[in-house]
């Protein structure tokens, strides 16, 4: 009824937060963010070779990927690389965070800050070719071509990512807790071991996971630094895209997506938990 409508509007309330069309665009955007990923995942289970015609459910492409020695090799390399780079980067970032937070200005602080954040400021492709230049020279000079170059390069760009959550955690920490520990006869080391470390631990774990994901996802720097035969999963996939694409790439992508999503969810839980 016509006379009911003003009442209805009133009951719903007039909110200044409503902007015409915004909700529609937002929901469309959120759906659009996930739709391509969902399609990718769905077709990884496709029976046929097509990436768009559904021919029934199967795990065929997962089996094929798992049996592919090149994939096994790349996956293992990706894992070793991400674990070593993320661990080293997290240790370095933890130490740097301890040094650069909760302090008044000290000589060199601005420089240390700038250096730690430097990998975030420079486009990846620029860092990649700079590393190519330097590492190519070292490789020629020493004849050594192991994975160490990849590990060093990954560690460097993982440091700022590991640093972020650790620093955020430290900044919310109460300084008087460490003062209290020292007041209660704890040495510097014991203060760190018994008070600082347990309290900053969630930040360290979050930093480690972030660094791990970043290392696992990297294509550009790996592509330029790797020696022949040192494919990681992302560079392997990039190479495959030049050939006929089969749902095998979808299967590998799905596994990477799943691993990333799990880590990010854990990261989210860790950083949003209040202690």
């Amino acid at each position, binding site marked *: 009824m016509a006379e009911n409508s003003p009442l209805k509007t009133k009951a719903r309330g007039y909110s200044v937060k409503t902007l015409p069309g915004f909700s529609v665009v937002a929901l469309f955007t959120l759906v659009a963010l996930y739709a391509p990923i969902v399609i990718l995942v769905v077709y990884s289970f496709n029976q046929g070779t097509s990436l768009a015609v559904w021919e029934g459910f199967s795990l065929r492409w997962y089996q094929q990927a798992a049996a592919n020695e090149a994939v096994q090799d790349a996956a293992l390399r990706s894992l070793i690389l991400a674990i070593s780079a993320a661990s080293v980067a997290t240790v370095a970032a933890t130490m740097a965070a301890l040094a650069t937070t909760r302090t008044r200005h000290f000589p060199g602080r601005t420089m240390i800050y700038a250096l730690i954040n430097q990998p975030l400021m420079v486009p990846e492709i620029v860092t990649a070719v700079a590393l190519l230049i330097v590492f190519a020279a070292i490789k020629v000079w020493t004849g050594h071509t192991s994975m160490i170059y990849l590990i060093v390069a990954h560690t460097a760009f993982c440091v700022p990512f590991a640093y972020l959550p650790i620093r955020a955690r430290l900044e919310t920490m*109460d300084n*008087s*807790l460490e*003062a*209290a*520990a*020292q*007041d*209660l*006869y*704890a*040495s510097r080391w*014991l203060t760190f071991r*018994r*008070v600082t470390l*347990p*309290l900053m631990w969630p930040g360290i774990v979050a930093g480690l996971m972030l660094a791990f994901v970043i290392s696992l996802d990297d294509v550009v720097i790996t592509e330029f630094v790797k020696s022949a035969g040192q494919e990681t999963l992302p560079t392997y996939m990039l190479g495959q895209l030049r050939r006929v694409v089969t749902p095998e790439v979808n299967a590998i992508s799905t596994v990477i997506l799943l691993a990333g999503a799990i880590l990010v969810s854990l990261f989210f839980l860790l950083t949003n938990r209040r*202690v």
Partner: protein
Amino acid sequence: MIEIESATKVFGTGEAAFRALNAVNVTIAENEFFTLLGPSGCGKTTLLRLIAGFEPPTMGAIKLAGDDITRLRPAERPVNTVFQNYALFPHMSVAGNIAFGLEMLGKPKDEVDSTVAEMLRLVKMEELKDRRTSEISGGQQQRVALARALAPHPKVLLLDEPLSALDLKLRKEMQIELKRLQHETGITFVFVTHDQEEALTMSDRIAVMNGGEILQIGNPKEIYERPSARFVANFIGESNFLDATLKGGQVTLAAGGTFDVSVPDGVADGAVSVLLRPEHVAARAGAAQDGEIAATVDTVVYSGEATTLHLSLPTGEKVKAKIGNAPLGDGSLPKEGDSAALTVATGAITVLRD
């Protein structure tokens, strides 16, 4: 016990330099409840941090039982602190917090356990010993902080405004509790507060601080009744300041009336400023007679246990008189606009140094 010798602390340099402590000398006796009282920014917390070892002094020395401890780190000083925000370790239980200092001192396990049990009993927290510190109330956290700092049995306990986060009722309870603990443990307490009532209630001696300096040290009675400086008088309790002339151990108020006074060192005969506490002034309606001071009532303020009259003297000076309320009210109190006659209690007038 503790000797602070010309301790000076300057923060920052050049233009921005701030002198938080200026050549402070103070000696705190063994087994004393000593309070540093002053407004925020007066240097009281800085002095406490110097004693604890969290900040090095710019100049001066800190001695404990005759030994110079100025260069020792906090962990090397037999001094413990109760922090303003308690600073309880959130990742440890109540008992874990209390045991921390003992463990750091490397005490054997059974001694740690027995001391922790003793401390829990002392602060009446036995039942909550396994709780996380975030799961207990503010008052309980306060007790844990106390027990934690007392457990290693320090020579001196430093307390940095420990009661400021508690509500009034709990604060009153804890004041008595702290006094009891000090008595039972026999440890020297150095207590920092900006609350004058708290200081008067608990302390053996009080040092009133302002602008990085100690203005007066004395027991609560001396501080309240014989403040040496106008700042001290003003900071503690309510005050009337009156102009007077000092001559040979007697002052004559500008508004009339001559009184015997004790003259502080360094005050010469001539114009002086005197302090008169409002509760030492009696008032009745009517014209002033011999020995009384004439006044006019401006405002009457009722505040439960007392009524405060705001009065004007013929000299233009303003005076407050605080009169305890009788059970059924007192018809003899003057009303607003009335003339009143004031009587000053014997010995109530204090000559101020400035």
